């Protein structure tokens, strides 16, 4: 994936050689001979190989999932294209000018969709004989360039994949390749090319298009069959970005040539169908047969990826609640870019593994057992430095063992498998019960804990769930539920969890341990649930009996004359207290069940990271600030920091500032000028600015009118540099004033 394809959409971090951890594909391409020394060094490290393995499996999984989710729509589109071209459409068969078109509603992140269209192209090429041309708006600034690009692409891409043709064909192709220049590409060329290539057999029969047209009069269907054998598909991936007049003309041209060339248009529409109608006037829409297709919206896609891949129990790597939230936040709040999200995730993965070879243990259980042997002393030390290692050591009572674990590498290595196992099982159980809890709380009114697994996941990783008000609210709502609702809900949660166990967990290592624990809990829960059900059975008479006295009680209460509002209030309060106290058997059993869930499942298994088993840092990446610094570009802030406090970047001794708005003579001139300009209003008087500059830079307090030319030159240069950076602009209205461009 060329990462600069969407350059108009933001700024990109290029992973330099210092980090040198590119994707596996690139690594393979580079090979040993031209890889830098550093790269070979890194790629031999165990952490690197674990990283590549993990990433590759993740990538494959994501790709699979995405292609699956696109499949439905893409199939539809391909089907449509195929129908239009090969079968031909009957209701317009004597209308030669109507171009079939498909509008694909894609969603707002346009750079993301190029990939989608690339897959679509592939599908079309697989399914049918067609040439596909991706026509982007940036190539279509004028009608000329649009047509040229389109024709060039058609002829070019056909040459790249030469069909199995006879030698003569190849000869002509070779000649073509030499001769074709960009400016020569026009519709006429395309017609000739198409005729030469795809309707050759018929060429002799009807030498000129007049002949073809003649035939058409008698048997339109036959003609369509012969002519439409090879479709020309034009994809406009970013419909909104097109200049409308150019687009109109382009469509008119295509429709004019439709009799000779079977075009199919595919629009990628980011907003809604009305964009198409707004862009095209009637005389153009009447030339286009539009068919609308909808794709999955980006948030749905993301959820799918999150739930199926990133939260999959298959992978040992996890994100901490905050990091997870951070990435989803970028997605939901800023750009809706799935590609961006995946790259962000990949970045976290890289950062995680780059922390050291100890992190090579972050893979599946057996692989990590193998890795233990390879650990060097430093790696083991690295493990000892993990935050969660300390509580673990402290929990050991035996002094000798403590010493052994802290000093003897081999002893620790012997201990490691057990620790790793605990971690693995912990995360698997967490994932399993996440399923359970999501079903339980996902559709409560107002969704205090969130609807999606992702929300709940980041929630329970970062905080102690039990203590959160949202959780309490949920629990209250659950306990207020009617019996049917409650029972169906809990049993649904149980069945979903069981399904999840069977579909996702069974094939994994350590599955049996998890299964036993989970099954045990679920069994207990089922028992409790039957109790709830039974309590209802028994309760039927008690409720009636309690209802019976209460009904006469109310009229009685009504009869009671309240002397004041206060009395009534007190009475009501009392009544509510009474109601609270004598909870029925049903309520008790519900409370029991909930308590069981809370104590046995949530507190035990859905613990926040602070309570996670030792060495969980090996599996969880939590350094949000680094990721933020690297992923989100903040050019304005960085520039401000550089100019306001150069020490931050220069790390020199001369520029250390005690407070941020301090002015020192030793600061770079640009920085001084910048800081001075911050104090001004919209208009800056250059002379005043110069005086201020001089007073800072020139420590000799000379009251002379004449400014030292050297200082003036330095000042002028600083101002020019500020102008270059875009902070100021020389004012045209007021002489010797500059306008601030930032606020």
């Amino acid at each position, binding site marked *: 994936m060329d990462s600069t394809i969407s350059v*108009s*959409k933001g700024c990109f971090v290029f992973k330099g050689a210092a980090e040198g951890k590119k994707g596996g594909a690139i690594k393979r391409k580079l090979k040993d001979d031209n890889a830098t020394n550093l790269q070979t060094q890194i790629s031999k490290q165990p952490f690197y190989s674990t990283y590549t393995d993990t990433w590759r499996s993740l990538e494959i999984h994501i790709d699979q999932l995405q292609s699956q989710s696109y499949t439905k729509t893409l199939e539809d589109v391909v089907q449509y294209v195929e129908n239009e071209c090969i079968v031909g459409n*009957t*209701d*317009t*068969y*004597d*209308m030669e000018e*109507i171009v079939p*078109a*498909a509008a694909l509603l894609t*969603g*707002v*992140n*346009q750079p993301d969709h190029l990939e989608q269209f690339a897959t679509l192209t592939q599908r079309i090429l697989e399914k049918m004989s067609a040439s596909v041309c991706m026509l982007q708006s940036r190539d279509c600034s*004028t*009608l*000329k360039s649009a*047509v040229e690009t389109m024709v060039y692409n058609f002829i070019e891409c056909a040459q790249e994949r030469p069909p199995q043709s006879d030698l003569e064909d190849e000869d002509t192709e070779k000649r073509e390749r030499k*001769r074709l220049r960009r400016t020569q590409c*026009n519709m*006429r*060329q395309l017609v*000739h090319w198409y005729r030469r290539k795809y309707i050759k057999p018929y060429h002799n029969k009807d030498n000129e298009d*007049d002949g073809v*047209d*003649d035939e058409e009069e008698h048997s339109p269907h036959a003609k369509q069959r012969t002519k439409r054998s090879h479709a020309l598909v034009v994809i406009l991936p970013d419909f*909104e970005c097109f200049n409308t007049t150019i687009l109109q*003309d382009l469509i*008119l*041209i295509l429709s*004019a*040539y439709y009799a000779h060339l079977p075009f199919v248009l595919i629009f990628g529409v*980011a*907003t*809604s169908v*009305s964009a198409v*109608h707004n862009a095209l006037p009637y*005389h153009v*829409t*009447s030339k*286009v047969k*539009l*068919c*609308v297709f909808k794709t999955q919206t*980006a948030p749905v896609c993301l959820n799918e990826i999150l739930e199926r891949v990133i939260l999959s129990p298959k992978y040992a790597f996890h994100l901490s609640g905050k990091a997870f939230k951070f990435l989803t936040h970028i*997605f*939901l*709040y*800023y*750009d*809706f870019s799935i590609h961006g999200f995946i790259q962000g995730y990949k970045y976290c993965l890289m950062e995680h593994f780059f922390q050291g070879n100890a992190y090579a243990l972050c893979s599946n259980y057996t692989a990590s057992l193998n890795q233990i042997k390879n650990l060097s002393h430093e790696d083991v030390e690295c493990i000892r430095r993990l935050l969660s290692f300390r509580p673990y050591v402290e929990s050991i009572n035996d002094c000798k063992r403590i010493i052994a674990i802290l000093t003897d590498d081999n002893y620790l290595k012997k201990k490691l498998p057990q620790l790793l196992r605990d971690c693995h099982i912990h995360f698997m159980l967490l994932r399993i019960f996440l399923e359970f809890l999501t079903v339980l709380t996902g559709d409560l009114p107002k969704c205090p804990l969130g609807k999606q697994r992702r929300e709940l996941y980041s929630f329970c990783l970062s905080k102690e769930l039990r203590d959160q008000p949202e959780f309490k609210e949920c629990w209250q709502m659950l306990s207020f539920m009617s019996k049917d609702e409650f029972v169906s809900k809990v049993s649904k949660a149980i069945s979903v969890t069981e399904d999840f166990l069977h579909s996702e967990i069974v094939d994994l290592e350590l599955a049996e341990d998890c299964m036993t624990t989970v099954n045990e809990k679920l069994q207990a829960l089922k028992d409790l649930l039957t109790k709830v059900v039974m309590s209802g059975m028994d309760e039927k008479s008690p409720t009636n009996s309690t209802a019976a006295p209460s009904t006469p009680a109310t009229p009685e209460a009504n009869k009671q004359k309240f002397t004041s509002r206060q009395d009534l209030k007190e009475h009501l309060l009392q009544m509510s207290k009474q109601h609270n106290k004598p909870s029925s058997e049903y309520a008790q059993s519900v409370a029991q069940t909930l308590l069981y869930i809370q104590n046995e499942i949530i507190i035990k298994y859905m613990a926040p990271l602070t309570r996670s088993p030792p060495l969980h840092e090996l599996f969880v990446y939590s350094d949000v600030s680094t990721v933020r610094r690297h992923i*989100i*570009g*903040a050019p304005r*802030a960085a520039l401000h920091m550089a100019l306001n406090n150069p020490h931050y970047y220069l790390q020199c001794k001369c520029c250390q500032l005690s407070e941020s708005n301090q002015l020192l003579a030793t600061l770079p001139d640009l920085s001084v000028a910048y800081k001075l300009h911050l104090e001004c209003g919209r208009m800056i008087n250059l002379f005043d600015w110069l005086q201020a500059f001089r007073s800072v830079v020139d420590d000799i307090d000379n009251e002379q009118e004449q400014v030292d030319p050297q200082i003036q030159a330095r000042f002028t240069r600083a101002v020019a540099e500020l102008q270059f950076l*875009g902070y100021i602009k020389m004012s045209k209205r007021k002489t010797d004033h500059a306008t601030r*461009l*930032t*606020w």
Partner: protein
Amino acid sequence: MDVCKTITEKFPCRKKIVKELINLISYDEEMFPNAIHIHGHTGTGKTTIIKHLLKESVRRNNENVFNVAFVNCVESYSSRILFENIAETLCSENAEEVKVENLKDFVERLRQLKTEDTRYIIALDNAERLRDMEANVLPSILRLQELSGLNLCVILITQLPLEKFYCKTSIDEPIIVYFPQYTKSETLKILSADFKNAQNLLISQLQRNKTENLEQKIDVINTVSRDFFNNYLNLFLGVFYKACRDLSELKITARKCFTYYMTPILEGNVDMSDVSRLWRCVAGQLRTALMQVYIRNGQPKSGAELNDKDSVKIAQSLELPYYGKYLLIAAFIASYNSSKEDKRLFVKNHGKRRKRMQAVNAKAKVAEKMSTYIGPKSFSVDRLLAIFYAILEEKVGLTCNLLSQISTLVNLKLLSFVSGENSMDGTSRLQCTVGLEFIVCISQVVGFNVRQYLCDFN
């Protein structure tokens, strides 16, 4: 005279014009006229008739004697392509060899063609585009006969009358042929000629859908008489003739609606003679079809979705990132408030507003003065961001991701640049292109009250 006959058979109601045209170009003993200007509305058959007429003439004459180039000017974004297209068909050489750089080359090439009694016709469709080319193209095209010394006629086909072609250097007056619009009865006559097609369409549709009792239904269709079809067309034109006179459009719609008309009959619910009931059944369909005239729809099922021009629905279906929504709202507020009011709206301690008589008068706003009715005003990016930060409760960094949202919104045509699109110094100005309803809907999604921040509503 049989050219005339075949053409008029094919295109009824155009006998007079066809005759006129044939008089102009079909006799080999006379010289061709210099140029013919054909104009008339869309869907009056200009292009089609000329095309068929010329083809017919070529067929009847020997090709070496009668040479025709039919070129659509839409694709001729440069005069070179126009010339090459013409030259290619006239010279009938290998296409790749044709190289015509400019008008001089073109005329030169035509002169080389010189043979005794060959006649040439150059028909230019969408001729109004010629006006946009170099200044010498249109006048010289109209005098091509004189320039090339051939027996050559140029036919301009356009929707515009000749007056619109006049230019500074003046042009030679061509012969003018006007295609008037078809009257209602003429339209009816032409549409009823389409009877067989409609029937075939219906049958093929049934075959495609694999409906049950196929044989029986096809039998029913075959029994449909032309009178029945004409009857239907009468109903159909009653609805459509007011909205649309484009013949090809009417033809397509008539075919489409005929299937609706036939459905109750095919299903056996209504008898074929019961016209009034049939009308009741089809009226609704016709009305929806009327909404979609000129809009070709691939899938007839989703027709309802298509014509939801309702901005509310669009707003609901539009997925935008959270901050993108807020930026759009901020842009709307910036567009529809004057910057003077910003302080009052967004700063907490903005001081008291002095009440002056003027202000009071201004307050009594009439609808024309409402800025939401007047249309968006432009704003700078700085102001947009300032308002964005004012209406957003949480604190967000000014990051690349946020700034690129603005360009995304521009790309989606929700915002548009008014000026300074390419300048980098922050002086570029934008405006918001969406309406109040749309914004209200979006702000409801994020739980924000826009009206509170619009001067018109305070």
